[in-house]
C-alpha cells in the first residue's frame, strides 16, 4: 500500500469530529509548532519539505511564505483558497468533507508561521454543506483551546472564519478571491503589487490551496526532510488526484509522486483501467486548463521514457508533447469521446466564467466557443481551425490573470494533437449533425480510430 499523509484516516468512523481526530494524532503539529518552534522555524521546515502549491501553479510554498511583507503595526492574513472549481477537480471537497480538522490544524500552524492573527477559509458557494462542517469543526477547535486567545499558553492569538462564495470560477484566482472576500465582484487585480505585499484590505496576505495547507501538518509532524524523501526530484510528498471520466474507479486518490501514469491509470489500486473494455483515446492530467494528451503521450513521453505522476514528467516536452500536473484533475477519455465536442464544452466553460475585465479574454473566449460550436454542429469551415489558433494566440499572455491562458491552452492542444478530427468535422457536416441529433438516444459515435 502506498503511503498516505493526508487521507490516512479519511475512512475512519467519526474522523470529522474533534474527539476522534485528536485521538488519532490530531493537533500534534500545532502543539509541536507553538511549543517548540519559532514561526521562522516552521517556515524553514516547509522550505525544506519542497512543498509546492497544490492549487495548480505548483509554486514553492516556503518561498511564497518568505515573500510575505512584515511591516510593523500592519495585520497579516492567511487565506485558504477552497474555491475549488477547476473542471475535473474535487479533491479539496473530499478532504474538507471527511477530515475538516486537518485543514483547521494546517491553518493554525501556517497562520502561526506567518504571524497572522486572523485567517479566512474562502469556500465555493456550491459546497454550502461543507461550510457548516467546517464551522462545526472550528467551534470544536475553539472549545478545545486550539483557537482564540493565547493558544496553549504560547501568547499566540488566532481567529479563524469561513467565507462563502456564490458561483464564480474566477474567484479561484488569488486576487479575484481577495476582491470577493472584500465583498466585491471577483475581478482579478493587476500585479504587482502581489498579495504578499498588498493583499486582503491592502495588508500582506498569503493565499494557499486547501491541500497545500493540509500538507503543512505532516511536514511539521515528520519534519521537512522526511517529507522531501517521498516523491521524485522537485515533486516531493504526496498529491491528491481527482480521477474522473471513462475509468473503472473514479474518485480521489492520494499518491506518492513517484508512481507512473501507467500504474495510476491501469492499476486496480487507482483508476482500474478504462471502463467497458474500451481503449484510451486521450487524457487531461491536471484539470481542464492543461493541455490534453493523446493516448500515445499519456504513459510515455515523446522520448519514450515512462511518464510519471510528477510536476516535471507531466510537463516533459513542454506544450508540444507534454502537459501539466495542474490541480491534479485527471480526466480520462475513451475511444468513443469526441475531442471537438469536449473542446467546445471547455470553451463554453471559460466563456461563461470569464469575468469580462480584459477584452482578449472576454471576447476571445466567446469567439472560440461560437466557432467550436458551429464546427461541432457541422457548420464549420477549414479556415476555422486556424482562426481558433489565432484567437488563442491573441489571448495568451495578454490578460490580467491566467484565465485567458487557461482558456487558450486546451484549444491549442486539442488542435495540435487532433487536427484531423477537427478536419473531419468540416468534411462530414451531415454526420456531425446526425450524431448530435441522436444524442438523446444513442452514444456518441467514434470519429477517429485510436
Amino acid at each position, binding site marked *: 500500500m502506498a503511503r498516505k499523509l493526508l487521507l490516512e484516516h479519511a475512512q475512519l468512523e467519526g474522523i470529522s469530529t474533534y474527539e476522534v481526530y485528536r485521538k488519532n494524532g490530531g493537533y500534534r503539529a500545532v502543539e509541536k509548532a507553538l511549543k517548540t518552534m519559532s514561526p521562522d522555524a516552521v517556515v524553514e521546515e516547509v522550505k525544506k519539505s519542497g512543498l509546492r502549491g497544490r492549487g495548480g501553479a505548483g509554486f514553492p510554498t516556503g518561498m511564497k511564505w518568505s515573500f510575505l511583507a512584515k511591516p510593523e503595526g500592519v495585520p497579516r492574513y492567511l487565506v485558504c483558497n477552497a474555491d475549488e472549481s477547476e473542471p475535473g477537480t474535487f479533491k479539496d471537497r473530499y478532504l474538507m468533507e471527511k477530515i475538516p480538522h486537518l485543514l483547521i490544524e494546517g491553518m493554525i500552524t501556517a497562520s502561526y508561521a506567518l504571524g497572522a492573527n486572523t485567517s479566512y477559509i474562502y469556500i465555493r458557494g456550491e459546497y454550502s454543506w461543507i461550510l457548516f462542517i467546517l464551522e462545526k469543526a472550528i467551534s470544536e477547535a475553539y472549545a478545545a483551546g486550539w483557537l482564540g486567545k493565547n493558544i496553549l499558553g504560547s501568547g499566540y492569538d488566532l481567529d479563524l472564519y469561513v467565507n462563502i462564495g*456564490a458561483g464564480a470560477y474566477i474567484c479561484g484566482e488569488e486576487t479575484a478571491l481577495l476582491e470577493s472576500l472584500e465583498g466585491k465582484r471577483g475581478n482579478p487585480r493587476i500585479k504587482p503589487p502581489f498579495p504578499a505585499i498588498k493583499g486582503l484590505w491592502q495588508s500582506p496576505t498569503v493565499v494557499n490551496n486547501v491541500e497545500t495547507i493540509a500538507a503543512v501538518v505532516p511536514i511539521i509532524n515528520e519534519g521537512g526532510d522526511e517529507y522531501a524523501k517521498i516523491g521524485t526530484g522537485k515533486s516531493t510528498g504526496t498529491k491528491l488526484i481527482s480521477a474522473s471520466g471513462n475509468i473503472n474507479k*473514479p474518485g480521489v486518490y492520494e499518491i506518492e509522486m513517484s508512481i507512473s501514469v501507467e500504474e495510476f491509470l491501469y492499476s486496480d489500486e487507482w483508476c482500474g483501467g478504462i471502463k467497458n473494455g474500451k481503449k484510451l483515446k486521450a487524457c487531461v492530467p491536471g484539470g*481542464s486548463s492543461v493541455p490534453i494528451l493523446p493516448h500515445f503521450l499519456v504513459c510515455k513521453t515523446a522520448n519514450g521514457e515512462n511518464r510519471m505522476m510528477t510536476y516535471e514528467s507531466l510537463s516533459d516536452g513542454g506544450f508540444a508533447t507534454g502537459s501539466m500536473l495542474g490541480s491534479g484533475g485527471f480526466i480520462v477519455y475513451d475511444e468513443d*469521446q469526441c475531442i471537438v465536442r469536449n473542446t467546445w464544452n471547455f470553451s463554453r466553460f471559460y466563456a461563461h466564467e470569464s469575468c469580462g475585465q480584459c477584452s482578449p479574454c472576454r471576447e476571445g473566449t466567446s469567439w472560440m466557443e461560437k466557432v467550436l460550436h458551429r464546427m461541432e454542429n457541422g457548420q464549420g469551415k477549414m479556415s476555422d481551425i486556424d482562426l481558433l489558433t489565432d484567437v488563442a494566440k491573441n489571448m495568451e499572455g495578454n490578460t490580467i490573470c491566467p484565465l485567458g491562458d487557461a482558456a487558450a491552452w486546451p484549444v491549442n492542444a486539442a488542435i495540435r494533437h487532433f487536427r484531423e478530427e477537427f478536419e473531419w468535422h468540416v468534411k462530414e457536416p451531415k454526420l456531425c449533425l446526425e450524431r448530435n441529433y441522436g444524442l438523446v438516444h444513442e452514444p456518441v459515435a467514434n470519429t477517429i480510430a485510436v
Partner: protein
Amino acid sequence: MHAAPTQNGTPFQYSEAARAEVLGLMKNYPEGRGKSAILRALHIAQEENHGWLSVAAMDEVAATLGITPIEVYEVASFYSMFNLQPVGKYVLEFCHTGPCAIEGAERIIEYTKLKLGIGKNQITPDGMFTIKQVECLGACGYAPMMQVGEFYHEHLTENKIDQFIEDCRAGKIDKGTWKMH
C-alpha cells in the same frame, strides 16, 4: 405548499433570526469591513425570498450591511448562484461541464427537460421546478450530477430523476436550508 414568488416591488425584510445572523457575520471582519459578509447575506436573503433576489431583497441586504444598493446589485449580478428572476420551489442545477458531459449529463438534462416540459431557467406551471445548467460543481468522479438546494445528487440515471421528481411532488424532499445548521 409553495407560496407565489414575490414581485419586484413586493417589500422584503429579513426575519429577525436572519437579520441577527447577518449582523453577527459582519463581526467576522475587521471594523468597517462588514461588507465582506455580503455573499452570505445574499444567500440568506435569497432563501427567505423563495429562492431568488428581487430588488427589494437586495435593498434589504444593502440596508442591513450599511452599504449602497448599487454595491449589492453589482455583486449579485456577478455570481451565478444568485437568481435575479423567480424560480420554482425546487431548482435542479445540472452540471454540464466536461467530465459530467462525457458521462451522459447532456442526455439526463434533455430527459428531465422533456419530462417536466420546460427549458433551462423556466418554471413548471405548478411552480414546483426550475432547471438550471451550471458549470463544474466538483463532483466529476460521481457524474452525472445535479445540485438541489444544499444537496448533491450524484450518479444520476433516468430512473433516479423519475423517483426524485415523484418524491418532490409528494413533499418528501428536503432541500436543506441555511437555517437548519
